[in-house]
């Protein structure tokens, strides 16, 4: 396998990593799988399309995550917080319903046609990486994702807010007793999670095509990543996302017609071998 193929895998893994870390953060804190995560990613891509048309791709890179963070706030305040004393599954199913609503609303706004977003000027061509030409835009995606992963982990480990998030993820009730404002922490986490989905959508827009089925397709993959990584573990989700991205790309070289099934096969293997996921705490 040559370098460009490895980079291809890392690029796909980067998208999965950004998406699944957001999903895992929300899950860790609220105990809820956000089934609307794919729809949020899709919203990010469509918003990026419009902003890139009107202003520029760089503006989209800022605007789309911000809009999505606002959407995340709505999600937290209207649904998660109001329903926090309900069964988690119910809340999960509410997000399932929200996913259907968001996806349709996007189609009503932007239409059904497949759209595409051009890579920003200066990044449309290729760059030489150790002697092989590789699309500059994909290098940007990889760079942003890796910087983000490092930053996120560092922030969670070292900052005060990060400590609160980790504490609340571990045990909500005890954290509340210890004086952590769980509502505020949760608002922050859901906003960040949604913004990450928006960022992934923006990065994906010039990378893959922007179309109405993109949300569902990626959601399944991300769910698999989160389960494999160990539900609720952010580090596990990141690693699993990157691993799956590389595995899938390599698989596409050796056995293209089976590469679609690789995530599912990986899921089954992990379930049989380690049912709690690679980094899961609980059986």
């Amino acid at each position, binding site marked *: 396998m040559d370098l460009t193929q490895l980079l291809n895998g890392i690029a796909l893994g980067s998208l999965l990593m950004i998406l699944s870390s957001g999903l895992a953060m929300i899950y860790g804190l609220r105990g809820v799988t956000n089934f609307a995560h794919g729809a949020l990613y899709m919203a990010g891509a469509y918003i990026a399309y419009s902003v890139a048309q009107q202003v520029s791709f760089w503006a989209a890179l800022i605007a789309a995550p911000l809009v999505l963070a606002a959407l995340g706030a709505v999600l937290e305040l209207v649904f998660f917080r109001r*329903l926090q004393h*309900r069964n988690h599954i119910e809340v999960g199913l509410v997000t399932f*319903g929200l996913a*259907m609503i968001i996806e349709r609303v996007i189609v009503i706004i932007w239409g059904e046609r497949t759209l595409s977003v051009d890579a920003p000027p200066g990044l449309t061509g290729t760059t030489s990486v150790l002697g092989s030409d590789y699309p500059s835009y994909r290098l940007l995606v990889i760079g942003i994702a890796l910087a983000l992963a490092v930053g996120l982990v560092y922030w969670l480990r070292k900052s005060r807010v990060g400590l609160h998030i980790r504490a609340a993820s571990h045990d909500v009730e005890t954290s509340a007793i210890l004086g952590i404002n769980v509502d505020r922490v949760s608002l922050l986490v859901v906003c960040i999670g949604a913004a990450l989905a928006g960022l992934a959508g923006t990065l994906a827009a010039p990378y893959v095509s922007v179309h109405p089925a993109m949300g569902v397709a990626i959601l399944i993959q991300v*769910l698999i990543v989160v389960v494999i990584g160990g539900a609720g573990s952010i580090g596990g989700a990141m690693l699993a996302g990157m691993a799956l991205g590389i595995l899938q790309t390599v698989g596409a070289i050796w056995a293209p017609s089976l590469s679609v099934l690789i995530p599912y096969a990986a*899921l089954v293997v992990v379930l049989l071998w380690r049912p709690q996921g690679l980094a899961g705490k609980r059986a």
Partner: protein
Amino acid sequence: MTDNLTGAPELTITPGGSDSQTRLGTIARHRHWLVGGGIIAVITLLGLAVPYLVSSKFNMGLVLDGVILAFLALSIGFLARHLGLISLGHTAFFGGAAYTVGIGIGRWSMTPTVAFVVAVVVGTLLALIMGVLVVRSTGMTFLMLTLALGQALYQFSTQRIAIPWTGAHDGLQIDLSGGTFLGLTQKSMMNAALFWPVAWVLLMVCALWLWITGRSRFGTVLEGIRENEERMRFSGFNTDLPRLIAFVVSGCVASIGGALFALNAAYVSPELLSFTKAGDALTAAIVGGLGVLAGPIFGAIVYVLAQSRFNTSGNLHLYTGIALVLVLMFLPGGILGSLEKWVRGRLSRRRQATPPSTSEPSSPEDQS
């Protein structure tokens, strides 16, 4: 926890009568069986009159579609009611059985009756395989896993290597001219009014089966697991096996629905296995009410009728999503569940009877 998915504890009751946990007296039990069985028998007979009451072919077709979807909703509801588990993977058994009918008739020249039986067996086996992989998980993980594994079958069915078997995205047309199903010829199978008695009676048999399973000692074990798995395990119960059995039973009911679908529609296509179909069935079950045996059946019929009404501008899934969110937020227990709660509230107020025992159900713990 003020509320769980299946509604308040008194809502986990089938239309037959009151809670099983508290009354184990044999006499009461026998009366239960009789009253419950009697009610199902009466409903079955009443239902047979439907083709005579619904005059238009089109509406008859809709009601039949609803009843076929009801198998899927019923099976999902069973798991939710007795184990608190929500499955998004039952499309695999429904669709798997439907495909087996197509493959059995198309490739192996089975008669429709044989194909039906084989399809139900295959669907049930799929449930066994998926069950082995998922029964150890609970709550949210179960939801994610069933969705992912169900989609695995969808992905597989649409690959080129599967074309000789499934036709991939083109699906399969089923040529039913070669035989009969329970005496129905090809034309009769495709005729909603004539196919109705078969589908309806089978649905009622499944409902009765699930009801009896739920009220039996096995059902009590399941409820014990739902309420507190660790306690059950400490009391010496193997909790995985009953879960697996319940999963397979429910998968079998979904398979029957899928096989009937294939015989009536004479085609199968990948959307039977899709994410959307899983969402449809679950929404139907939740809107009808997971806590009541008849809830998912009612929900499925309402769902199909509403679908034909509201599909005018392509916004079907927008409405589906809104319905799901609204019911979950404001009408936990679904339509029938809330109705039953209301009726019971009025009855108990009138009788001034003591309220039923309130054993607080703890939700499946899924927070890490």
